[in-house]
């Protein structure tokens, strides 16, 4: 990580099964500006191996919109990892 990297704060939301695994519905974390959603997920996956197991069935969102895992994050973003949806 270069010296020019800025650190930003993002909000992270967990739902359904993921909320039960992580033990919280909401988190606030610091990460380098522009880090992809994938990198943020990896941090949670490292501390919660069961979470990493669900990765293939998850989709990510950034600011209430589905987002590619490669989407860079910036200050104030709201990120969520969404299990398969089962509304209706």
């Amino acid at each position, binding site marked *: 990580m270069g010296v020019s990297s800025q650190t930003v704060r993002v909000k992270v939301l967990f739902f359904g099964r993921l909320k039960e695994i992580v033990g919280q519905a909401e988190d606030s974390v610091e990460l380098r500006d522009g880090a992809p959603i994938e990198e943020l997920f990896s941090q949670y996956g490292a501390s919660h191996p069961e979470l990493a197991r669900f990765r293939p069935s998850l989709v990510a969102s950034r600011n209430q919109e589905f*987002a590619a895992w*490669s989407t860079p994050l910036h200050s104030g973003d709201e990120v969520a990892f*969404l299990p398969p949806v089962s509304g209706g």
Partner: protein
Amino acid sequence: MNKLPQPDLLALVRDPIDHVTLIKHVREEEDGAIVTFDGCVRNHSHGRRTLYLDYEAYESMALEKIREIAEQIHEKFPIHMVAIAHRLGRLQIGETSVFIAVSSAHRPAAFDACRYAIDTLKRTVPIWKKEYFEDGAVWADGEIPPAPLETRAANPAS
């Protein structure tokens, strides 16, 4: 008899869904057809007796996705109005979890739009259902929403 355009009625609710209010909202004198879909809590799932359900949502995003569905069906089908309500929290057997009402001059548009709306809602709206049985509870198997394509260019090395 000009009228101001009346917006669609789109809601996430915690109290029982009032079908009559939703139908009245979409049903006007220019309409020849109203099609409704009433999704109810079944007393069984995968051969097991269901006791009750809990629904939870990413509420801000879910409402936004429901708004997008309403926009899409107005674009795709010649309908008049749509009402969509999804309930959250604990639901008992027989209660309505989702209700959709679509009005149009002619029936094909109302049928097509109502079906498109519930099919799309089930694939794309971030809502999750936990099913409670006599011997435990499980998060329902769901559908993986269509995700944007990964673009590696969006991940600059720093």
